[in-house]
Each structure stands twice: as C-alpha cells, then as structure tokens.
C-alpha cells in the first residue's frame, strides 16, 4: 500500500492522461511524486479511459498520419471552433508542442495506430492509441511504477490547505480513512465536474437529471470548486459542456463511445410531441454530432427519437442497442409512447416535402425538403420502406469547460492574475483556457499531454527550489 505519510516533492491529484504525464515528467526530473487517484485501481484513469486519439501538428506524412497538418491550419481550426475564445499564447504552446508530445509518448511505449474504421475524417490530423485510452493508461501507469512514483488509488482529495497563495497540504480520504498529504508542490489534474449532477443542475436546472454522463463517475469537480473557493480565477462558462446525443438506454455513467448513435443525418428526429426540431442533414455527422446533445437537452423531458426506415438501416456505425422496430409508423409510435396520429402527420409532411435528387451518403447531396420547417437540407429521403426503426436519444455529457486560469508554466492564477506559488494544473481542469467553447476532436488529449508535461517539469523544479530555500534559511 502506498505510503501517504512522507513529504513528497510533488503531489498530483487525478489519475488520467494529464495527471500521469505530469507525474512521469516530474519523476523523470528527479522529483518524488505521489499520485492521488480517487478511483480504485480497476477504474483508474478518469475520462482518459474512454479517449482514443490526440490532435497532432505535422509537416509530413507519418506512420499513422497522412499528408501534413501545419501550425496555421491547426490554429485556424481552433479559432473557428472556439470563435476566438482561447488564450492565444497557451493555444500556440499547445499546437507547437503537440508534435513533440506525441514523440514523447511514443518514446515511453505508447503505441499509435492509423485512424479507426469509421473515422476517416481524422486520418490526417489524429493518431489513435492502439487499443484506446485504457491501453494508453496502462502504459502510463507502468512508466510511473518503473519511475518509483507512489500511486494512491481510491484516494479522494476534498480540501486544500493553501496559505498566502502557497499550497501546504491536501486533505481527504484514502480507502475510507481520513488522510493528509504533504508535498512541496501540487498539480491539479482532477478533471471537470460533469459527473456531479447537482452542479450540472446549477447551470441547467432540473433537466440535468436526464443527462447521461459518458465518462467516469469520479469527475465530481471537488478540487475545481475548492480552487475557485480559494480565489483561483475561473475560466470557461459554467453552463458550457460538450454534449452529444447518445442512446437513451445507456447506463447513467461511463458507457463511453459505444452509446453513440450515428444515424441522425439519414433520419428524422422528433421530440416527445412527435415534432421535428432541427435540420438533421445540416452537415456531415462528424461535424454535427457535438451540437445534438444540446438540441436534445432543450426538448421536453430531454428525450428525442431518430427514425429511419429499412433503406437507411446500414448506412452508419453499428449501435450498442438494437433499435425499436415496427412495420408501420403508428406501431412504432406506440412502441415509443408517442402520439401515433401526430407522428404519422410529421412523417407524412416530411415525405411530401422531399424534392427529388440523387441520394448519396458520401457527399452533401442536396436531397432536401421544400416548404418544411425546420428543413432537412441533405440526405432527405421519404420514410416509406418498412420496417421502420427508432433510436431514443438523450444528451450525453462528455466534459465541462469551466476551469481554472493558468499561465504558460501551467501555474494556476488567482482572480487578480497573480500565480499561486506552487500550484499547477493540467488537463480538463484547465482545458477551457485553450478550448473556451466548441470542440476539436483530440485536442483535449493534446492539451492534457502538453500541459501535463509542463506542469510536471515546473512542479519538480519548484520543489527543488523549495529545498534550496529551506537549506539557506
């Protein structure tokens, strides 16, 4: 069992990619490191367990990536999705260090592969982790063990002793027993607050009860709250979260990637009132899936149903749960507990409004509706080939944006803009500095790795200075 009583150089709170990148960097610089992970060993790694790639700048094709993805294109992509809501200095650091970050990972045994089946759109920009995020974490934990990092699982920090902007000790519980952890510097890599439903309700009201949390149940935001209470400067809006539409039958937490439903562009999506509410064919699904969580969250009871017919049943990734199936729209409505007449009317109006054009799922095919509100602007085909299928949808929360402001050294800043002396942050808890809103696939992992390394190196250096200072005193 981990020794929690000695005075470590660096305490890392969290157990995901950013936390382990920080712990490994600090340990490689000679620091003694304690990692406090709130989950038990079997569930370690936070949301990194569910990730699969990171976004990497590169000037020429690599073993896993095609073509090139230059700094300016990466920058433009980030500016586009965030509408400029980013700290430009930190964004530059993230992008410029992304290539080195991937090499650093590979040098420590992380294995990459080309983009997965069904993710062709990322083959140029994102190398994938062989086996996904849990395989990545296994490699990180092996590295950490080899470097002598102390790993305290099932250890949740709830309270920080901070005096004059200086971290003294962390309190919480380890395997059920109260503990006080001491270290010369602190790295916060404890994620966001997306699994804290009460907190989500502060921003979203009662509808948050119906959200499905795609990741770990351990991201409860305790240390984020604690730091904000200690006057850390907040960044990102509390009501911003990355939300996709997931299968409503998914478990409440931790179902990750498999509950996605990719049929929306080939479907019509109706709410509890059997009414359509948004253009399902606005763009390719990889460019639109991240808005559908919010769209469904705005519907009554936070539920919607994507309806397709036999023609479209195999045009998208296989799903975890089989769809509801019926030979008529009315029968399908019955199964979904929707008003059959109303659904018949919605489908009928949609079918009648379709203008003839050649359907092609591979391009924006301009198969569109006319005179219908809302319009469906691509891939509109009548629902007329039984059997009919339906997937129930709910908002699935991936991560939250609210975090703490950091500087280029990953030091946390207070509301006056002054850095805490020995407190650093990496990963989701500070990702909002760079990704103020919107989403760019894989950038969360890039931020976690780049700032994990920065935080680890600086926290180790900070701990060494503390030793020197103590000796001179």
């Amino acid at each position: 069992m981990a020794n929690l009583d000695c005075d470590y150089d660096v305490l890392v709170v969290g157990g995901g990619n950013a936390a382990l990148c920080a712990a490994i960097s600090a340990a490689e610089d000679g620091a003694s490191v304690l990692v406090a992970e709130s989950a038990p060993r079997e569930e370690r790694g936070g949301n990194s367990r569910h990730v699969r790639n990171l976004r990497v700048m590169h000037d020429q094709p690599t073993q896993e990536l095609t073509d090139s993805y230059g700094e300016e294109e990466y920058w433009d992509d980030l500016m586009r999705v965030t509408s400029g809501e980013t700290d430009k200095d930190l964004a530059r650091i993230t992008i410029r260090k992304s290539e080195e970050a991937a090499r650093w990972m590979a040098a420590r045994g992380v294995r990459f592969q080309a983009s997965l089946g069904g993710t062709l759109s990322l083959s140029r920009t994102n190398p994938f982790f062989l086996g996904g995020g849990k395989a990545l974490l296994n490699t990180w934990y092996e590295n950490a063990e080899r470097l002598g990092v102390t790993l305290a699982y099932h250890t949740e920090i709830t309270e920080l002793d901070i005096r004059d902007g200086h971290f003294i000790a962390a309190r919480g519980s380890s395997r059920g027993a109260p503990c006080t952890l001491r270290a010369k510097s602190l790295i916060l890599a404890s994620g966001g607050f997306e699994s804290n439903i009460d907190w989500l309700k502060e921003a979203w009201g009662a509808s948050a009860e119906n959200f499905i949390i795609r990741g770990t149940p351990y991201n409860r935001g305790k240390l984020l709250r604690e730091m904000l209470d200690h006057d850390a400067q907040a960044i990102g809006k509390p009501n911003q979260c990355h939300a996709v539409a997931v299968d409503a039958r998914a478990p409440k937490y931790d179902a990750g990637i498999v509950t996605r439903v990719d049929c929306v562009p080939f479907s019509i999506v109706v709410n509890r009132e059997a009414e359509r509410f948004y253009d399902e064919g606005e763009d390719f699904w990889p460019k639109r899936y991240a808005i559908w969580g919010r769209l469904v969250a705005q519907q009554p009871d936070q539920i919607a149903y994507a309806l397709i017919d036999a023609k479209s049943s195999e045009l998208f990734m296989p799903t975890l749960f089989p769809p509801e199936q019926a030979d008529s729209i009315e029968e399908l409505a019955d199964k979904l507990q929707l008003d059959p007449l109303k659904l018949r009317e919605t489908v009928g109006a949609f079918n009648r409004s379709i203008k003839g054009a050649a359907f092609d799922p591979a391009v924006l095919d301009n198969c569109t509706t006319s005179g219908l509100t809302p319009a469906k602007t691509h891939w509109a085909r009548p629902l007329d080939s039984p059997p009919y299928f339906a997937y129930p949808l709910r908002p699935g929360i991936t991560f939250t944006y609210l975090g703490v402001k950091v500087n280029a050294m990953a030091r946390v800043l207070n509301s006056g803009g002054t850095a805490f002396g020995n407190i650093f942050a990496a990963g989701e808890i500070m990702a909002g500095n760079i990704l103020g809103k919107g989403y760019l696939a894989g950038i969360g992992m890039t931020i976690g790795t780049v700032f994990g390394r920065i935080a680890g190196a600086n926290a180790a250096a900070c701990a060494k200075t503390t030793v020197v200072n103590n000796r001179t005193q």
Partner: protein
Amino acid sequence: MTHPLQQAETTAIREARRVMEVCNACRYCEGYCAVFPAMELRRRFSGGDLHYLANLCHSCRSCYYACQYAAPHPFDLNPPRALADVRAETYQQFAWPAGFARLLSRNGVVVSLVTSLSIALLLLLAALLVSPQNLLGIHTGSGAFYAVVPYQAMVYPAAAILLFGIAAMVIGFRRFWALSDHSLFTRHAWIQALKDVATLRYLGNDGPGCSYPDMAFSNTRRYFHQWVMYGFILCFAATAVATLYDHLFHWQAPYDYLSIPVVLGTLGGIGLMIGCGGLFWLKFIADPVPGAPGMLGMDVAFILLLFAVALSGLILLALRETSAMGLLLVVHLGFVLGFFLLLPYSKFVHAVYRLAALIRYAIEQRKAPEARAE
C-alpha cells in the same frame, strides 16, 4: 447427425455475440489482431460467424486489458474468455466423430495417460507373446527395435492410427470451412495464412508480443509456442525420413547418432520439452481472468502428453544400448500412438481450425476492404 449449427444456441455463442456487438460499436481494439477487422465486416453475428471469429482469436489478451468495458464496468466484457469458450465448442462440435470429442474436454490428463499406457501395455503383451526373452535383452545395430516389438505390431497400428487421425481432422476442417462461401483453394490466402502461422503473427502484436501471462506485453508465450511447433515439425520430419529409410532403402532403425532422423528427432524432442515446459509454467502463473477455465484441462493434457512423447523418446535414445531399451521402447511407442490416437480430439485441433480461420480471413480482407460496415 445434425450439423453443429443446427443445434440450439449455446450460452457461449450468445455471450460471444453480446461481446462482439459491443466491440463492433467501439472498435478501439481493431489494431490488435484479425478478430476485430473481421468483426467490422459484419453487423450481425451468426453462430457460424462466431465460431470463425473465435478461432481467429489467439487469446493474446491485449484487448481484455485495453477494454474500457471490462469488469467492474457493468458491461463486463471479456472478449478472450468469451471467444475461448466458443472455441471449446468448436473443438467438440466440428470434430468427427463428434462423440469422441467429449473424451478430452474433461479429465483430459487421465484420458491421455490411460490411453497411452494401455497402448504401451498392449505392445508389451505383443512383445512378450512373440519373444519374452528379447524384452529385457540388449539389442544393437539395424533392426534392434523390431527385435523387441515386431514389425507388424509396430507399423500397422501406427499407420492406421495416423491415417484415421488425419482423416478425422480433414473432415473437421471441411466442416468448419463450410461456414464460409469462399473457395478453399485460394493461393494468396494460403500463403498469407501459413506466414501468419509460421511467425505466430497474432501473438506478436507487431513486435512487443501479447499480454500473457499478465498485462505487460511479452513474447515469451509466442517463443515457447514456436519451440513446440517447430519441435513437433522436426520430430515429424524425423519419423518421415526414418519411414523412407526403412521402406525405400530397407535401412532399419536404430540409426546412428549423427544420422538425419536421429539429429532431427533429438533437436525436435529438445524443442518440444523446452516449449511444453515453458507453456506449462506460463499456464500456472497466467492471470486467470481472461482465460477459459473450461479449456484448461484440454490444454494441460495436450502439453503433458507431448512432453511425455519427447521425454520418453530422448530417454530411449540415451539408453537404447542397454537392457532398459525394450521397456523404454514400448513406453515411448505408447505415448506416441496415444498422442496420435487422441490427436483429432486434443488441443492439437486448434491448429486445424485456426488455419482455416486465417485462410478465410485473408480471403475476406482482400475481397472487401471497402465493404467494412461503417
């Protein structure tokens, strides 16, 4: 006789289907081995598909340790175990005659030992009936073995047993192949599959090896397996050369220590002992969670029997010029004949079905790289 797939669906098939349906919605593991790319060509999994996928799986276990849905996750996925459970059913349901296959699925070690020692006893009786004084005598030079066990008693049962075993496995192979719509005679696929077998590609993971005996990647199991496989091939070659010597040139065993059959057999025997010993040791230290407990008896029986074949052969070689030769010879022949008699119902058949699966995989992947179910 009902075809295996006309029988009611088993728990193992249903569990493998549940697992594959989750995997097909996830696909994070597709870089590990052949199972996942083969899975991705399908949206639904028939019983036949699952037998095919199960035999593509080499139980490298990488996917289990990488699985975000493994226990304690409520989905409780364990693909290597689910597929191994189906493989155990392949070995029973596709075997011919099917009833025999149940022999080794339980009490494999006992069945192997009893069979081998019974054969040894029969040979011993034959030897005693023909010339009791020869059994404990010292025999050297050409034809020395036949002085103990007569030619007819040695060659005819051996030939019959071997031909039966080969026929039974060919039938099993054809029944398994009948699950696919492809032509078996596809040259590129055989070349690819044999390459994959020769290098044991899917325990290699492109270099670092597999997660066996625990999570860390290692090539240990792959190397031990190849000691067994190439050891077996060398021993088989030794026997084949000796058969030619005997029947073509009328040069009778025992042969000189530096003759081709003895050199091949010695090297092969040593390889078998290293490989079987290593695999046996790994079995006992391996993480049991991704393993299939139902397969363990079969595995251990096969490893032990093969080890006994090699060990008894090497001891016979060492002591063939002493009075112990007669007894050692009947024991060794007992293990060899027992091994071949049980061959179509032993773990050896994993090679039969896995080869068929790899050939089918090579055909499918070349035919439909763009037909992936996306």
